């Protein structure tokens, strides 16, 4: 199972999320974008187990994936 943590507006935008099964981050994001097309137009960074990932990364059982949007407020 993959644990998914949403930050900022993504929590409100995506609501109660069903996390698809995926073996790596690229697959997960592809499935999430199919499920929630609004993600295509949404800026976010991706972290696996509290590390920023920029390339396709394998997902292990019970790992935690975080989707973090940029904040502009000050």
């Amino acid at each position: 199972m993959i644990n998914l943590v949403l930050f900022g507006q993504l929590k409100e935008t995506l609501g109660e999320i069903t996390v698809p099964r995926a073996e790596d981050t690229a697959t997960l994001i592809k499935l999430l974008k199919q499920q929630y097309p609004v993600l295509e137009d949404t800026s976010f960074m991706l972290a696996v187990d509290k590390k920023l990932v920029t390339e396709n990364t394998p997902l292990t059982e019970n790992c935690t994936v975080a989707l973090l949007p940029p904040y502009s407020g000050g």
Partner: protein
Amino acid sequence: MSEASSYERYHRQIILKNFGDTAQDKLRAASILVVGAGGLGCPLLQYLAAAGAGCIGIADDDVVALSNLHRQPLYSMADIGKAKVQVAAEKLQALNPDVEIHQHTKRVTSKNALEIIKNYDIVADASDNFATRYLVNDACVLLGKPLVFGAVSQWEGQLAIFNAGTDAVNYRDLFPQPPSAGTVLNCAEAGVPGPLPGIIGTMMANELIKLITGTGKPMLNKMLLYNAWNNQQYELALSAQKEAKQLLPANAAAFMETDYDVLCNKTDLLPGIDEAQFFSMIQNKHVLVLDVREPGEMPPCDFPNSKQLSLSQLPKFFDELKSYKTIITICQTGVRSRQAAALLVAHFSSTIQILNLQHGIINLKKITSV
């Protein structure tokens, strides 16, 4: 100020283990530019001046407004309408006359940023918009200046240090490209609890003091996410990425030619309408009321010509909307509908008039008073 009173002023930090006169001298020798004198900037400036930073530059082109005061308690009623930089400079000078303060009342742009930033050792991004955030980041990368970053969104804050230490990262390693227009709400649109920028701004001051004095463990190559709603913290390890390097301006000339307002799709607020305009417009049968909440959210959206399409699914259904002349997006409080309006504007450009019902369905008095 005499040496004795100076010692008394800074006594409580000087006696800290690993701080001492050495750290105090480093603070006195430091020059720091704070971009933004708002919610983050106020506490940041106060703690830097209080701690005895030698020179502080304040850059902001805004004036004090009544809606600032709940989160910018450096200012008071008498300051409304005055330039923030000038008021802040006066108050900081009163707090600590030893600090040299430089006022930058013009907006920081790609034309003047390098000229301003080059005079400082270190920069703090306490701004409130993406155009300034990308601009300050890129300028600091070009000039090799450490950048302490803070940002807030509703109940959450982000804190990081860029361009410092080994394997340094910058903001573009996190978010290589600015977000699409209107997809990320600012404090004026989404709201912010007063203490949150106070907390994050104070954390920024703490990081600056550690970085300048070489004490403690600064947040190098890490980002802290703080949630004021439940007090949860989340620390993220950052690393550089190839894409970021390619997107940075190659040199000062390329930087100065970049229009960061255009790059960051800075647009005026999307047209919003109030309750009176809303009830007048929905009499017209060519106007669609688009409820972008999830199915079943209350109160129901039972206006004559309305449709429900959840924000998260909206892009799948653009085709169903193309025959309308005007679409008013609505949701509970006006947050999701604002984002939906931005998506629709991006998709239909000017072929359909897109309006957002400000403050949402729960604030429509006609409905909630029933």
